């Protein structure tokens, strides 16, 4: 009898407490800071737009900070954010190593951090949410293997080597090349995720190896640069596979100028990130690493999509 009473009191207490915390939530929406490296690529522009839209939809306060790809400015931004003391920080760093300092600052201040897209190489983060870039690299390699069943000489345009996005995409692609005997990597160089550099580097690669039949670029800007190089050299036979499915690349795939691109799903990434942040703030357990799916975009897949619509 007595035990039941105690239980009842405890239960009532918990309910009141949770009701109080819920009303606190309702009064004051969670304050989330979003710190991004740049808004100069389509990918981040989409992330930013979706972040604002989704934050409004789920009712959180969102403040966006960017740093023009400058790690020093990023640190200053992090300090500004911490002086404002938000509930949680969503962070995609300019450089995974330089990010360590930023994350450690937040750790010291006791503000939780969730990284997305690019990760941090140090400090404590609640969770890291990203496209499974290594898987994406593998998908690109597998696609090239599929369209060249008899083997091919391939080239690789790497991204900014200090970023783990570039490293993972390259690792996935090279894994497939290594395990496939008749695919030979004849040229490999960084073009820093830049279209102009992608064009120049690929022009030079074609001078050295006119036997190249396919090229994998770790982002679409470089793939589009390689495409311009192929057009200028009259080499429209070369199969170009990019990464990110930027609007220009999708147009190029549709026109047959590029063979394929790997679509990250930026909307899915930022939605997952915000969901994870809210779950964490509500005291739920969250996974340390969350991989977001990717999608191979080819002329056929685009045709199928239009048909479905």
């Amino acid at each position: 009898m007595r035990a039941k009473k105690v239980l009842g009191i405890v239960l009532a207490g918990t309910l009141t407490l949770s009701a109080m915390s819920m009303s606190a939530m309702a009064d004051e929406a969670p304050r989330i800071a979003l710190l991004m490296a740049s808004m100069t690529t389509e990918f981040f522009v989409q992330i930013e737009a979706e972040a604002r839209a989704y934050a409004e939809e789920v009712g959180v306060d969102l403040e966006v900070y960017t740093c023009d790809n400058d790690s020093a400015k990023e640190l200053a931004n992090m300090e500004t954010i911490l002086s404002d003391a938000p509930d949680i920080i969503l962070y995609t760093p300019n450089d995974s190593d330089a990010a360590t300092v930023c994350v450690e600052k937040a750790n010291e201040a006791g503000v939780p951090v969730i990284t997305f897209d690019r990760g941090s190489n140090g400090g404590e983060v609640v969770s890291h949410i990203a496209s499974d870039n290594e898987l994406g690299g593998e998908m690109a390699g597998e696609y090239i293997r599929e369209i060249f069943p008899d083997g091919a000489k391939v080239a690789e345009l790497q991204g900014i080597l200090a970023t783990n996005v570039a490293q993972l995409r390259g690792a996935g692609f090279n894994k497939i090349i290594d395990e496939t005997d008749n695919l030979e990597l004849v040229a490999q160089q960084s073009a820093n995720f830049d279209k102009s550099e992608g064009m120049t580097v690929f022009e030079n690669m074609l001078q050295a190896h006119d036997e190249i039949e396919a090229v994998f670029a770790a982002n679409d800007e470089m793939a589009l640069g390689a495409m311009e190089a192929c057009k200028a050299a009259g080499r429209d036979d070369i199969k170009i596979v990019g990464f990110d499915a930027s609007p220009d690349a999708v147009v190029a795939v549709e026109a047959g100028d590029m063979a394929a691109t790997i679509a990250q799903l930026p909307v899915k990434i930022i939605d997952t990130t915000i969901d994870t942040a809210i779950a964490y703030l509500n005291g739920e357990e969250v996974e340390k690493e969350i991989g977001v799916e990717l999608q191979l975009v080819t002329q056929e897949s685009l045709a199928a999509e239009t048909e479905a619509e």
Partner: protein
Amino acid sequence: MNTKKLSEIWAKYRPVLIMIVFIIVAECLSRKFLTVNNIMNVLNQTSMNAILALALTTVILTGGIDISVGSTLAFSGAAAAWLLRAGHSTVLAVIVALVIGVAIGTLNGIFISRWNLQPMIVTLATMSIFRGTTYLLTTGSPISVSNPAFKMIGGGKLFGTIQVPIIILLVLAVIMHYVLNNTPFGRHIYSIGGNEEAAYLSGVNTKNVKAAAYAISGLLASVVGIIMTSRLSSAQPLAGQSYEMDAIAAAVIGGTSLRGGQGKVVFSIVGALIIGMLNNILTLLDVSTYYQTVIKGIVILIAVMIDAKSN
């Protein structure tokens, strides 16, 4: 007698001789280097940096510097792309881009000459301003260009082999060489760089001449902006970022003194060619990106050391 003559030739044509040695070494390292295709490829790739080197040399000769060229080219290129996307003609897009280049250059020139501000700081400020306006105009994403006439500027070929940017570079080089060496304006630029006070006292309108030098720099940067937008079929928000550094390196390798008053535009182009050939041969040899960056720095250092020793 003979050694004296040789050292005279060395002093006079140093950058050209360095380039010849470089070409010989490169050809020994890769038989793919000295082919017509590859030479045209290098010239075409180098033309943008070479035109920027013309711009930088002009202001460096006055004892100044212009680090805003990267942003100037990005903004003028983006403006051209924006107009083309809105359905305007190639002629209008090109003219507007050039006008923007001259306007930014003139703005730099007025601040530097009328207000007597440091060229490095003024152009640092305009570098930031016009990178920002480029972000605003492009909203952070590339602006695609599909106008076939416009695409001829960066992608067209004359007689089937010589790319249009190479022709543009040659024409601009001839004009700038003539202006700087055969006109009173050119002599004034050199005399300001040599000794501004003395130039002023001998009746040179130093303010106007300096402002004009920056206007020329802006104009040349916008030409590069047009070429790049056309070559890539799109205007990139980050176009030309840190290109001023390669252009300064080209001028210095070509023997231009950062103190002003000394240098030749033709040799700055040679400097740009050396940098372009270096990038090219390293890729032909499949040297990894890590080493390329190191090697580039070392070559610039050696070039500057040779220059300092010979002076």
